[in-house]
């Protein structure tokens, strides 16, 4: 009997770090940035709130039907977005707390775009076998910081299908636009980190 209890306790203790490594905790200091920001968005929706929100999505509106389909498999949606009047209102240390968590083997950085102007974007995915079990987007600009964490099974195709609706730009139909507009850039940008995906 004692051995059984000991086994259960050991199993419980071992399971905690595994679970914790999968969860991304948005650092508390991010909330302090809201005081300095001219505009801030704070969205925290756990599984129960997502289910509740899902009940209020219309069955007749095709856009909302699409969202409902997407949300059904999610465990949480967390967004912190700040816009500042001046540059230098946040430091990279504020973001570093999240990057550290994303260094665990389950997470892979699929895209990392850097610019000398400080306009950086990173996309991380949580691999769950063949499926994507989560997505984190970190976008930093001199006067803007955005962190998006979508927890749960997410199909990027479903997310891209939302493009063109509800104020989301049409993802994947931008090649022509980028070709015509990307000629006079003076910034030196490093290319995306797709090699990490290939690894």
């Amino acid at each position, binding site marked *: 009997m004692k051995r059984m209890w000991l086994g259960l306790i050991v199993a419980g203790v071992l399971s905690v770090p595994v679970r914790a490594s999968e969860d991304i905790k948005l650092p508390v200091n991010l909330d302090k940035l809201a005081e300095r920001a001219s505009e801030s968005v704070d969205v925290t*929706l756990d599984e129960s709130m997502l289910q509740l929100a899902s009940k209020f999505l219309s069955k007749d509106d095709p856009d909302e039907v699409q*969202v409902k389909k*997407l949300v059904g498999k999610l465990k949480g949606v967390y967004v912190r977005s700040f816009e500042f009047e001046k540059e230098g209102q946040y430091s990279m240390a504020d973001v570093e707390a999240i990057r550290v968590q994303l260094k665990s083997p389950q997470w892979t950085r699929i895209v990392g775009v850097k610019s000398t102007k400080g306009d950086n974007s990173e996309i991380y995915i949580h691999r769950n076998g063949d499926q994507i079990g989560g997505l984190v987007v970190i*976008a930093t600009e001199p006067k803007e910081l955005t962190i998006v964490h979508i927890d749960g099974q997410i199909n990027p195709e479903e997310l891209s299908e939302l493009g063109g609706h509800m104020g*989301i730009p049409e993802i*994947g139909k931008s090649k022509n636009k980028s070709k015509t507009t990307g000629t006079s850039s003076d910034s030196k940008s490093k290319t*995306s980190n797709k090699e990490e995906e290939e690894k």
Partner: protein
Amino acid sequence: MTPFEEQLKKALARQEPSADFTSRVLAEAARQEQRKEAAGWRTWFHKTWFQTPLMQARRFAPVMVVFLVMSGVVVYRGHQREVQGRAAKQQLLQALRIAGIKLHHTQLRVVAMETEGTDWPPQ
């Protein structure tokens, strides 16, 4: 035997009841029972419907209070849940909008860099 005794004996002498005595007694008993029943219904009807509203209110007040409180709680919770749900829906749509915009922006930059070696948007 005195005349008085004579009268008394005559008065107390056993007499057989008339032939319809039993039926008359039974009929009377049934009538009385009917009267009682009618009076009972009248009393109940009167108490239930014609008592003063104050008396009725006093009787049903605790039940009404419990009923009203419970319905109030149910309605309030439902309303609260609806407000929460609508707020959550708006938050969800906003979150997906931000996520979509940021992914789109990143994609434009990657495509611009891959095709032309420049950044997007042009600086």
